[in-house]
């Protein structure tokens, strides 16, 4: 038999590294498999911070996990599972202190504690930060810890398939990008920590590698359901042009939003919270200003930081300033920043419980690829980094518990059969004589998702989107590759990813079409209110040959009854 590890973690972002550290700490033989070197993972790009009720900041001295839980649940528009939110918010201070002890260079308060800033959806500073490079600071620390603990990483491997045998996950099939070889690896447990799918959308703040291929593998090959995929977060402030993120921290530090009449238009939408209302609300407000013409170039409004002054901008938002200088050619110290909403985060993902378990024994998921659900219909800024570390850690420990209790499962044949199947599929793709240009399919998918499944949705748009995706899926079968080279074939990698993107897009759009209400990020202009009577439930999408089959499951409510959501 070939390669074997007790636990294989797919993904080397914050959630994957944390899961691997946990399982290795439990004494297991662990390996990570990742499309890129760990520090190139998308977690590196997180800017604003990580939430924990440390109560370090003036104005937040009486913060506690219950307040954090309430804000998270209200922010989620009551779709989050409250037992899971409880776990996350209780664990939050502990994991932030642990990262600090491992070396994360958090910014500091005057008395030397971890500094906290206000973020949307909380009434006071709760978001712990390292200037505006919090993800970078956390991911480097997590990677440093993994170097110290000598975690094994298979770098530049692309997960293609998850292998099942006797109703349990027994390994994976992956492409070694470096030499084009397709290999099978057996494992007693697999943890998917492969991040989000932002690049299905045209205007996305995500890394170019965020194609959702891990989520797609779980859905297509392992047959586990995806949960709540119609809930797509649009960040209010992405830089016009490149859609690089301008952190919510910019508004947390006091930045204003202006339309082309120099009006702080948030007063018309969230009079109390203003710029610090939750993301779904601010994104819709900006999009409304744009749609109704109170904008520039039909495309953007302005985020103004000038009144914060040079010192504060240099101290708290140096990364944002750099981004503006390099990518927009302007200095926010003396010019407002052109911004527009951009796809940012997936609240939905692989259906798991708070232990990271999926419906398939031995298959776990964590981080943005998973949906526990702690974010429900809308994630609060600063809660995703928290989610990745808390549930990365828990899934690692639960996976090792599973492995220790499990009896051996001879899976060699299943692995070899799946390997042969995947090899045949790849070789079909490589040798396709079709006439379709894959770049066109990819770009039409992006436009379709922006236009038909964006900030504002309607039945007609979603139906058009679904029809288009079905067409693109057909056309995908006819694509031809420009290169058959084995070594580092980007053309092959990107077109393997495209198959998964199309599958996820279909799930997003179908879920959105069926959900006839507005909740969190999912806004239907034809059903503009929340409907708890019919829709206080999670969507589950199961893969079938003819497309996704949807069913639903109840939301866990413990202490907070759904109420109207105003800010």
């Amino acid at each position, binding site marked *: 038999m070939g390669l074997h590890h007790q636990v294989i973690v797919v993904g080397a972002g914050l959630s994957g590294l944390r899961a691997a550290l946990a399982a290795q700490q439990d004494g297991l033989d662990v390996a990570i498999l990742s499309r890129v070197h760990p520090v190139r993972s998308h977690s*590196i790009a997180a800017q604003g911070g990580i939430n924990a009720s440390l109560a370090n900041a003036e104005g937040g001295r009486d913060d506690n996990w219950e307040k954090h839980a309430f804000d998270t649940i209200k922010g989620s528009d009551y779709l989050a599972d409250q037992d899971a939110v409880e776990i996350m918010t209780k664990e939050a201070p502990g994991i932030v202190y642990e990262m600090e*002890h491992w070396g994360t260079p958090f910014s500091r308060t005057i008395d030397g504690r971890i500094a906290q800033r206000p973020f949307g959806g909380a009434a006071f500073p709760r978001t712990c930060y390292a200037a505006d490079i919090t993800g970078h600071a956390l991911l480097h620390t997590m990677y440093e810890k993994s170097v110290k603990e000598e975690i094994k990483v298979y770098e530049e491997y692309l997960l293609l398939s998850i292998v099942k045998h006797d109703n349990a996950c027994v390994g994976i099939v992956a492409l070694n990008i470096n030499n084009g070889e397709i290999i099978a690896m057996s494992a007693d447990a697999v943890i998917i920590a492969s991040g989000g799918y932002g690049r299905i959308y045209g205007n996305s703040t995500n*890394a170019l590698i965020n194609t959702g291929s891990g989520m797609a593998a779980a859905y297509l090959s392992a047959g586990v359901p995806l949960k709540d995929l119609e809930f797509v977060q649009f960040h209010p402030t992405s830089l016009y042009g490149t859609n690089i993120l301008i952190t919510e921290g910019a508004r947390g530090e006091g930045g204003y939003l202006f339309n082309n009449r120099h009006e702080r238009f948030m007063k018309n939408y969230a009079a109390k919270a203003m710029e610090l209302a939750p993301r779904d609300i601010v994104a819709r407000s900006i999009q409304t200003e744009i749609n109704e013409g109170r904008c520039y170039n039909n495309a953007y409004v302005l985020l103004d930081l000038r009144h914060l002054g040079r010192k504060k901008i240099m101290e708290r938002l140096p990364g944002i300033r750099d*981004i503006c200088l390099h990518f927009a050619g302007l200095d926010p110290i003396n010019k407002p920043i052109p911004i527009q909403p951009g796809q940012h985060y997936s609240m939905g993902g692989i259906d798991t419980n708070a232990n990271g378990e999926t419906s398939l024994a031995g298959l776990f998921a964590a981080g943005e690829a998973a949906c526990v659900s702690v974010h429900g219909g809308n994630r609060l800024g600063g809660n995703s980094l928290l989610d990745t570390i808390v549930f990365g850690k828990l899934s690692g420990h639960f996976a090792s518990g599973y492995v220790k209790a499990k009896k051996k499962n001879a899976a060699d044949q299943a692995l070899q059969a799946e390997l042969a199947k995947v090899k045949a599929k790849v070789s079909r793709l490589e040798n396709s004589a079709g006439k379709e240009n894959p770049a066109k399919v990819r770009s039409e998918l992006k436009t379709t998702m922006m236009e038909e499944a964006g900030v504002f949705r309607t039945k007609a748009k979603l139906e058009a989107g679904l029809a288009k995706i079905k067409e693109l899926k057909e056309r995908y079968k006819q694509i031809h590759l420009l290169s058959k080279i084995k070594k580092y074939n*980007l053309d092959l990698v990107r077109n393997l990813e495209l198959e998964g993107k199309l599958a996820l897009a279909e799930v997003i759009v179908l879920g959105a079409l069926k959900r006839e209400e507005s909740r969190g990020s999912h806004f239907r202009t034809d059903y503009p209110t929340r409907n708890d009577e019919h829709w206080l439930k999670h969507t589950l999408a199961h893969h079938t040959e003819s497309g996704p089959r949807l069913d639903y499951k109840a939301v866990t409510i413990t202490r907070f009854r759904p109420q109207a959501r105003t800010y």
Partner: protein
Amino acid sequence: MVTFKIERFNPDVDKAPYFQTYEVAAGKEMSVLEALFYVVENLDGSLAFRYSCRGAVCGSCAMRINGKNRLACQTLLKKLKSPVITVSPLPHLPIVKDLIVDMDHFFKNYEKIKPYLVNNTSAPEKERRQSILERAKIDEMIACILCGACFSACTVAATDKKFIGPAALTKAYRFWADSRDNLGDERLALVAGEHGALRCHTLFNCAEACPKNIVPTYSIQQLKGGLVKCRFSKPAK
């Protein structure tokens, strides 16, 4: 149209690297990284390069562009102001394929300096306190994205294959200077010796190449100062 001269090399089939020319239909705000994607999608699917965040934080796409080490994503064509753009892999690192270099050696050096916080006192229940001033000491160094641009630009690293190099030395300083770390002189010992900090010739090539405006030379000089002090405060063996 902008002309791109791109260095190509596939060790499986080519004897030596060579340049290939592509005409790219360039948009006004196009970055070099976007131009490379244009090539892969429209002209030549066999071109290989690394990419991830496209926002100058992940460190994947460092390469040599018009004679200087830069991040492809952060380099806009209009800023180069040049009708022909030459792109090649980071110099002095083994080429894996085309613009992709082998970073193993770079990360091995990084691992040599114990790139993690060491504090042997038992962890407090909450955070270890650190003043704003103490934290400010490492502000510049923590911006490093491990892209390798400095290492590849360093003439000492190019000739002395054992030289730890500017990125790893900056990391070493980042921990040595962190008020929470108590490895102290042991950290200095890790960067002592003929392939350590003292080997630096203070040519500032690293600083010039850094896409994050870090000056590794500063960190290296601090380490040198520490090493010299150590030497004089302890009896020579």
